[in-house]
């Protein structure tokens, strides 16, 4: 968040959204995690300045905010892709070849675990289980689950996401 010389916030739309989010949660017990979740929805990730604002406004020490951010797998401190791919490597998927799906995804996108493609189109991750074990191996793209995958399908699925 850029600040002009006299401290008025040179606010982007996202900063305004963050402020109104914080207004909702200022007196809410245990609001940090929902705030971080929604702030991540606003920015796509959790920028340092946003975290600092959250810490200040919720009166939670910055070290604790950072501790929470880095504890939970959901939070990201670097920009992420428009589409989040989560390849399941849970037990069932593991025994049915989940890692081959992951390899295929890596090859297709040219990025590794936790990485984002240069065009910010995809971020590739793994997940311990998405609870669709009956359809293993499977993966999620954003909120959509794709099951019974074979490696060669993977590219085609990605192509449907802009």
């Amino acid at each position, binding site marked *: 968040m850029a600040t002009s010389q006299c401290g008025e916030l040179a606010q982007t739309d996202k900063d305004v959204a963050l402020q109104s989010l914080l207004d909702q949660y200022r007196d809410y*017990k*245990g*609001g*940090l*995690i*929902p705030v*971080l*979740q929604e702030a991540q929805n606003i920015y796509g990730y959790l920028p340092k300045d946003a975290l600092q604002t959250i810490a200040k406004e919720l009166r*939670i020490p910055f070290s*604790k905010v950072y*501790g*929470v951010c880095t*504890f*939970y*797998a*959901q*939070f990201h401190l670097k920009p992420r892709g428009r589409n989040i791919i989560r390849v399941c490597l*849970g*037990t*069932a998927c*593991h*025994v*049915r070849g989940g890692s081959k799906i992951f390899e295929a995804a890596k090859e297709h996108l040219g990025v590794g675990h936790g990485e984002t493609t240069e065009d910010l189109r995809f971020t590739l991750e793994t*997940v*311990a*289980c*998405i*609870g*669709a*074990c*009956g*359809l*293993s191996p*499977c993966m*999620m793209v954003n*909120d*959509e*689950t*794709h*099951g*019974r995958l074979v490696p060669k399908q993977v590219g085609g699925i990605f192509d449907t996401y802009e």
Partner: protein
Amino acid sequence: MKNLDQIREKYKEQYKEKIGKTRIVVGLGTCGIAAGGGKVMDAIKEIVAARGLDADIDFTSCIGMCYREPMVEIALAGAPSVIYGDIFADNVEALIESHIVNKTPLYELACFQIPGDATPYEGIDIMDKAPYYEKQIRSVTSRLGRINPESIVEYIATGGYEGIEKALQLDRMAVIEEVKKSGLRGRGGGGFSTGTKWSFVYGAQGDKKYAVCNADEGDPGAFMDRSVLEGDPHSILEGMMIAGYAIGADEGYIYCRAEYPIAIKRLNLAIAKAEEHGLLGDNILDSGFSFRIKIKAGAGAFVCGEETALLNSIEGLRGMPRVRPPYPAHKGLFGKPTVLNNVETYANVPFIIRNGADWYAAMGTEKSKGSKVFCLTGKVNNTGLIEVPMGITLRDIIFAIGGGIQNDRPFKAVQSGGPSGGCIPAEHLDTPIDYESLGEIGSMMGSGGLVCMDDTTCMVDVAKFFLNFTQLESCGKCTPCREGTKRMLEILQKICDGNGVIEDIDTLDRLCRVVTSSAMCGLGQTCANPISSTLRYFRDEYEAHIIDKRCPAGVCNALLVYTVLADKCTGCGACLRACPAGAITGEKKQPHKIDPAVCIKCGACIQKCKFDAIIKA
């Protein structure tokens, strides 16, 4: 006190009217959607519109037969419902043509039927008698796949909120007594008596109390809670309300994994509907009892399934477990007395109150009452969600319900209880499933994942898989878990890489012992179970890896040697051309050879060979 009778009668009428019409219902639980249910739904809408058919289109949740997803139910007015499996965009038209237009069920895709008052079709199994359901009972799961989970009308029409209505007329302690008498034990794995737990919170001093629902189902291989949340969200709310009333809480939290967006959406909808009906909020049904429920979405940490870590997470802290005592019953959420149960436990409660403790206690074994929901997955033919009476054997589950192992391969083990559980070998297939017996054979009930394994599953690799999981999910607070899981994983990796020495087994043994006995929370205390159970039942596999440098299941790449069977090889050269490393040599029409020093063990040759002439071992 107000009662729901009028509304109930009205909703029953509405529901009866609805199911009396011709209708098409698509299963849109997460697994249904994953299998393509959404596309099937689109296709159905298109076809019904294009043909101008008079049929209601609706959706439901997962009925449990994951292996047949996507599933579609079709019922003609006054005729039985037929549930079909493996319906895709390309065969849905044929299905509608046959069942609705020609009024003839499409027999080859029919899974089973539910006749209701109608005359059953010939040649289709009735649900209760279908092999998959014959040994199951449907209590907690009874509405799954049967009602529209976003409809409070259908919930109330099927007996919903009768439990809370009845509870509110009872003395609070009487509600607790009823739950105690039912014998219900925590379905999250610990198996503590639910009624007793409630009585602790009832007796605890506090100006405020909470009822919390653990919906952070994080075990790989488990999706029972997700299915219930998606399929019958009101039952959770009702169970929590009953708990809240009994213990004296006016606020509840559902801590749900963020990975379950559909569950969260349906829960929010259910809360809104219940509030609209005056079933949540102030002075519920004019009883003087007030209760509100909030949803907290988890943020991705398995350890938050541990109750005190979960409380920290709701409070907005790192999900690190707290020291106990004090127990949550006395100092829980925000320092107030708190009852914590998981989804399945709460889901059982309305049934117990509605039908009585005796009805519930009649199911199950002496110490483990009622039914249990399991997720049957892995290398079994019929994967899915099942509900069985406590005391059923693993053999019944895997072979009668699950239809045995895929491709008729030999059964090797079933992993129960997720990362905290253990691997159970064939010799214990006849063990009746209950809390105590699973513990005795080195596993645990856990939340109810059952992952089946065949002879191509390497047990060292399985142990490594779980340790990799727990190592990544360890919160890092206590020494044995933080450092111990890391070293156990490294040793397992070393063994799988062929670098193990025989002393490693003793070291693993010792680490298992120390981590189990000295770790702080449930995650740490059980994280060694996958190792100790495989060491107990499959020690020979460890020894094979260490001494013979061989992976009997053919999984651990570093230990595999690819060889050409000279008597089967025709010398076609397909493998030679496929080998990216140039490790295969041989003259045309002569048996080929693989140079193990060059081979990168990618397996490309095996895939190309049409004569099964290449083996890895």
